[in-house]
């Protein structure tokens, strides 16, 4: 069955005081694997200017946001409490006129660590960088509200080194000094706080390897339900994968190629690297192509082809060049691999979901199940002009189906009792079952494993 989200109430507390939910609008809570800290934005409808004229909160005020979910009969209510935030900015457009200075008080917030960084200086003893990052997170200032759990910190591959945290905050030190030289597995590293405030250190590879936490499918209007009202193929899939429910999505956009920075992505498709090992006084020239894959490929299952034409890499000298120097060679190699981030979201899909599910945490994986119907017949009702699709034969799976990593989550206010979740999901390569997937031949695309079908 699909989840029955009927009402989701949003509660916002500023300095511990509940703001009347009826006055709250435009909530937007956002978290991403590459934005480090979650952010929150909302507006308070201050019609008469009462709040603005007796302002008792400001920059640095504590903000908590909770989401309470009820079902149809309001028998029970499950509450989700998100990360601790602090106000960073406020704005009032005085939409209700100059007489009262009433208007929408727009409030921007960042997770509390932004305000409460630890500025102690340290010459940390020799240790692996992953361990050091966890140690720093464990010693954050209490008011930063950073949640640390062992399972959220992966071990790094480096041999261990002394590092200096000087004249900077702990968050800045992790993201700007340690993370660029931290290698976890064979892919670039990520450090971020999810929307619940849990700190996570991992690599794209390790994040992507997690078991999917939920099943997402399109809102289907195909007339072929089983007894539970679930399309037969989906029911079979859920049984096979042991999913208790699915989350229908309403709209999606899929994209191939970096939307954020085309130049950066193209540069990283085939990089020429110049490295210098100062200890052995050796120069090294190397070429780096994307190495990240959804999994190993076999004759039946292709998971290592990126959507870049083979011909680009086979005929191009390079798409960019970079040099690294004045660091130990281990750091230079980590720099070069961590440099390779813009190709991680070479496949990206943005999905809109009515409501919010607790498993839609940034950094989790989900299972996207999209059937591909051949020969679908569409009948239009002449009275209502509504289309009805009738399933024809031969259902296969769309190549967009499979496991995806949630790289960004935005929870948006629709009304006082309703929210919408926008998620950006990414994966590095095609995931194609040559027997059942709509896309059967990926041989024209570059194989990061270099295997031949």
């Amino acid at each position: 069955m699909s989840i029955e989200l009927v009402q989701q109430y949003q509660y916002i507390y500023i300095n511990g005081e509940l703001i009347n939910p009826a006055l709250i609008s435009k909530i937007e809570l956002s978290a991403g694997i590459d934005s480090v800290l979650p952010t929150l934005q909302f507006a308070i409808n201050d019609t008469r200017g009462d709040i603005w004229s007796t302002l008792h909160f400001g920059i640095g005020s504590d903000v908590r946001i909770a989401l309470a979910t009820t079902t149809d009969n309001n028998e029970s209510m499950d509450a989700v409490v998100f990360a601790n935030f602090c106000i960073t900015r406020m704005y009032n457009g005085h939409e209700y006129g100059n007489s009262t200075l009433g208007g929408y008080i727009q409030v921007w917030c960042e997770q509390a660590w932004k305000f409460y960084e630890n500025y102690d200086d340290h010459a940390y003893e020799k240790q692996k960088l992953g361990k050091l990052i966890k140690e720093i997170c464990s010693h954050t200032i209490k008011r930063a509200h950073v949640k640390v759990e062992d399972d959220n910190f992966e071990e790094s591959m480096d041999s261990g080194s002394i590092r200096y945290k000087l004249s900077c905050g702990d968050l800045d030190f992790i993201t700007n000094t340690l993370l660029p030289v931290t290698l976890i597995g064979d892919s670039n590293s990520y450090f971020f706080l999810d929307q619940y405030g849990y700190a996570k250190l991992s690599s794209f590879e390790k994040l992507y390897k997690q078991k999917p936490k939920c099943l997402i499918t399109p809102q289907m209007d195909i007339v072929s339900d089983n007894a539970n009202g679930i399309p037969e193929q989906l029911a079979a899939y859920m049984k096979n994968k042991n999913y208790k429910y699915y989350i229908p999505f309403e709209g999606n956009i899929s994209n191939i190629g970096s939307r954020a920075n085309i130049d950066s992505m193209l540069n990283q498709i085939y990089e020429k690297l110049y490295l210098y090992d100062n200890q052995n006084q050796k120069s090294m020239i190397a070429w780096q192509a994307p190495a990240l894959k959804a999994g190993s490929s076999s004759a039946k299952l292709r998971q290592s082809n990126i959507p870049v034409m083979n011909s680009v890499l086979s005929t191009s000298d390079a798409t960019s060049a970079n040099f690294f120097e004045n660091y130990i060679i281990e750091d230079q190699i980590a720099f070069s691999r961590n440099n390779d981030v813009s190709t991680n979201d070479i496949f990206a899909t943005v999905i809109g979901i009515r409501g919010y599910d607790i498993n839609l945490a940034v950094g989790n994986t989900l299972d996207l199940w999209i059937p591909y119907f051949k020969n679908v017949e569409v009948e239009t009702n002449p009275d209502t002009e509504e289309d009805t699709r009738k399933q024809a034969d031969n259902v296969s799976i769309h190549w967009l189906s499979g496991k995806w990593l949630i790289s960004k989550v935005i929870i948006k206010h629709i009304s006082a009792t309703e929210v919408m979740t926008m998620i950006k999901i990414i994966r590095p390569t095609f995931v194609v079952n040559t027997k059942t997937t709509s896309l059967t031949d990926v041989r024209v695309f570059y194989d990061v494993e270099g295997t031949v079908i």
Partner: protein
Amino acid sequence: MDFIKPDMDLHFHRARVYKRGKFGDDRLQVRILPQMADIPQDELENLPKFPCLFKNMVLNCRQEATSSEKYSTTGNPVDGKDNADYVCVLCNKDYTFGYVVCLENAFYDYMTTPHKDSWGFSSIKDYINNRGMGDSALDYDNLVVQAMPSTEDGGMVEFYNWKNGNKYIINRSGACIMVLQDKVYIRAGSPGKNGKKNPFSAIEMSGSKIVIKTKLLDINSEKIILGHHGQYLLGTAVSSPFAAEGRNFYPVKDIAV
């Protein structure tokens, strides 16, 4: 997220020497200032260790960490925070890769304050002129000082005249080597001041003569030629004059063979 390539440049910093190098590891351990001023005491052993930038150069000096080293003349400690030397280091922005370039002077305010560690030009000029080793171009403006360490146990100054190429190395004990355009002067010991006479030895060598001043000239050589007269110096076991074959022989008592 776009990867921002880190700053890979090396930057100059001032640092206090925390620990000297040791046999087998010539690197200096340094505390870069002011960035490392607030490092906890129990983490100081993790301060960066950098080698000298220039190959075949080893720099050792006074350190911040206390040690048992004392000056032999005064018994005062050599090391400690107030005594430590400062060096100029060149390292990356993360302080994980770098070099020690050289010992570093204190920086003085713009234009107005004289350099308190300025070298003793006038006394050194007098010293040189009193030995006839000065030259017409021995002027402050013409001299390049290459080293002038000074501690409670001693000191030295090494400099040259960029105008005429004369070179001077003078130890505080009085020993010196001066390589001039027309002569070379080497001296060990100091003659003393105010009528006090100390033993010393000096060699002054010019194109036409060598003047040796010393209490005792001990030449350990199998063959010595004094002038080219075709005759031999006669040795005798006695110190008194004696006659032989109708000739009188007078031993030179100050030359022993």
